[in-house]
């Protein structure tokens, strides 16, 4: 069983020395999250390396999405949600006094579980971020940004001649890549992905995974996934959450082949979850 999973781990999951030596992009220390009286996350300590894909895995309700949403403060808009502890981006406390959420989210982009393009044209979807953050000096620069982002999201060939068509008219996989293009248009440093492929068919999933693999050269990617194969295929680091606790973290190969904790072992082999 373990061997079969090992063989599925592609070569991209190997970690070379250079990336290992890179500093931590995002770091969580002693993070507790409460929804009202209920504690959703218990004392999470997790460092996330730059230019890598970190997968957060675990059974439903284990708090992995909650943790992800803490990293760009999406939980701020949730009533009754309270975050304790320290989360830093490049050593800076993102819940600190002087930190503006708008600025933070321009640095930490997000892609959601269900593709959620705006009900506007494909062009306007991608241009939205640069527009609200005032990134483009003129129309030409904005055009370049949009085209470049669509290219990096691997969508440009499919939409080049219909940039004015509604983004909601694309297929599910295309919509999700549009959302990725929209997220990378503001050149964030970190991209959070909350089960980006769970609503997609295998072919669209494969395309997104390929894209994630490309994107990690420029971005630090943290993704929540329910598919262990996906975690094994695209991530270099994996963190296993269970019942609000971070049970184990480490190199993806290690987590899948020689997990230290019994619960991790049980989860990756499909016995719990």
């Amino acid at each position, binding site marked *: 069983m373990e061997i079969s999973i090992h063989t599925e781990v592609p070569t991209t999951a190997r970690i070379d020395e250079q990336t290992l030596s890179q500093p931590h992009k995002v770091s969580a220390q002693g993070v507790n999250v409460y929804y009202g009286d209920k504690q959703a996350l218990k004392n999470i300590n997790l460092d996330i390396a730059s230019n890598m894909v970190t997968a957060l895995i675990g059974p439903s309700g284990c708090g992995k999405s909650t943790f992800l949403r803490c990293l*760009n403060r*999406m939980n701020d*808009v949730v*009533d009754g949600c309270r975050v304790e502890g320290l989360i830093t981006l490049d050593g800076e406390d993102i819940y600190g006094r002087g930190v503006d*959420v*708008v*600025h*933070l*989210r*321009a640095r930490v*982009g*997000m*892609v*959601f579980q*269900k593709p*959620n*393009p*705006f*009900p*506007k044209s494909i062009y306007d979807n991608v241009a*939205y*971020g640069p527009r*609200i*953050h005032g990134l483009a000096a003129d129309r030409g620069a904005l055009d370049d940004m949009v085209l470049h982002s669509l290219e990096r999201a691997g969508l440009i060939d499919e939409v080049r001649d219909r940039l004015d068509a*509604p983004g*909601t008219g694309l297929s599910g996989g295309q919509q999700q890549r549009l*959302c990725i293009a*929209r*997220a990378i248009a*503001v050149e964030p440093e970190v991209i959070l992905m909350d089960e980006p492929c769970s609503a997609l068919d295998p072919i669209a999933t494969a395309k997104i995974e390929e894209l994630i693999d490309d994107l990690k050269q420029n971005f630090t990617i943290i993704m929540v996934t329910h598919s262990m194969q996906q975690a094994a295929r695209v991530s270099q680091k994996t963190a296993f959450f269970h019942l609000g606790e971070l049970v184990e973290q480490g190199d993806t190969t290690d987590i899948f082949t020689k997990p230290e904790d019994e619960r991790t072992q049980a989860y990756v082999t499909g016995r719990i979850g």
Partner: protein
Amino acid sequence: MTDTLNKSVPSKSQRIQAGLAKRYRAEKRFRLYGIAAIAAPISFLAIMLVVIGSRGVGAFQQTYAQLSITFDEQYITDNDWQGIVKASLRETFPDVSARRDKKKLYKLMSSGAGFDLQAMYKIDPTLLGQTRTVWLPMSDDIDMLMKGKIDRALAEGDRRVSDKELVWIDHLIANDVIDLQFNTRFFTSGDSREPELAGIAGAFMGSILSLAVCFILSFPLGVMTAVYLEEFAPKNTWTYIIEVNINNLAAVPSIVFGLLGLAIFLNFFMLPRSAPLVGGMVLALMTLPTIIIASRAALRAVPPSIREAAYGMGASQVQTVLHHVLPLAMPGMLTGTIIGMAQALGESAPLLMIGMVAFIVDIPGNFTDPATALPIQIYLWADSPERAFSERTAAAILVLVGFLIMMNLIAVIVRKKFERRW
């Protein structure tokens, strides 16, 4: 033993079969109830429209008589325009000599006939001393007679038109100088004591002016309130109390808003009585809860994923609302607003309290002119004793219904336009 048992007890599929027929029957029955439920209101509506339509359509025509009119200088200098009409009648019926008969003869024509001549002369003063054949409106009783609403077979004392008048009318008919013509006056003039001179234009303008004030006040206020309560306000006891109160306001009888308008707008702020400005303000108070409730529902119907997407991109709360939530909620908000405006259009009780129930002949030209509104005009006419007012009442209802349909059409078109933004 087991075999016989198996045979007597129906198999599972047989049981299901037996149940299916019953289920289909129940479904069919339910559908029939539904169709009946729809058919009932539709037939009521149809009956209402047919009855009002058949009664009111007569008011769109008016009886005119063709008279040979001499613009005599003497009458014109005396400003006795009706005198010209009387002279013409004496000429047409030279054998009427008794004073009482003459008075009756004069009453064939509307008292507005003289005004028509005056208007003609004003446009073309060269008419002085000339003779022209002119179509002039006849009185309401003759109008009713010509439209068949007065029964000639009744005894003379039981009908509004005497035998002598019938003879004169028959004479006019024989000479082919009496005719039903399109009643432009109904659409262009204000109210009048004389049914044949009364028009809907004053009330129509009053309604339009009031609704304009109502819309200008209630739409922005309602939408802003809804957006604030739904998107920005903290969810605490205070906002809960406000919410409950808004919901209650929607159920407050409209006359209470009229009393409020009377007490606050008229007596305290000293705003003019009977003015569309105040009418619109009172109607706005009444419409606000409807708009707020509909707008909040529309905002709540915007999928949370759109908000998340905007927040995830780093949009501020205001940007999220203005760029994404509001455009998506706008069609629903407009629907709510149109429902509110339609209610306001049909509302009469609050307007009674602020004096918009007065008899007003002039057509209001601005927001502070005394005015009345369509439903109140309908009420006033329905209350009038003259026979001819009953068809005018029905016609005014038709105008009101037409206005409503027009408003709803505009709403549908506007909504479709907004919806095209996906």
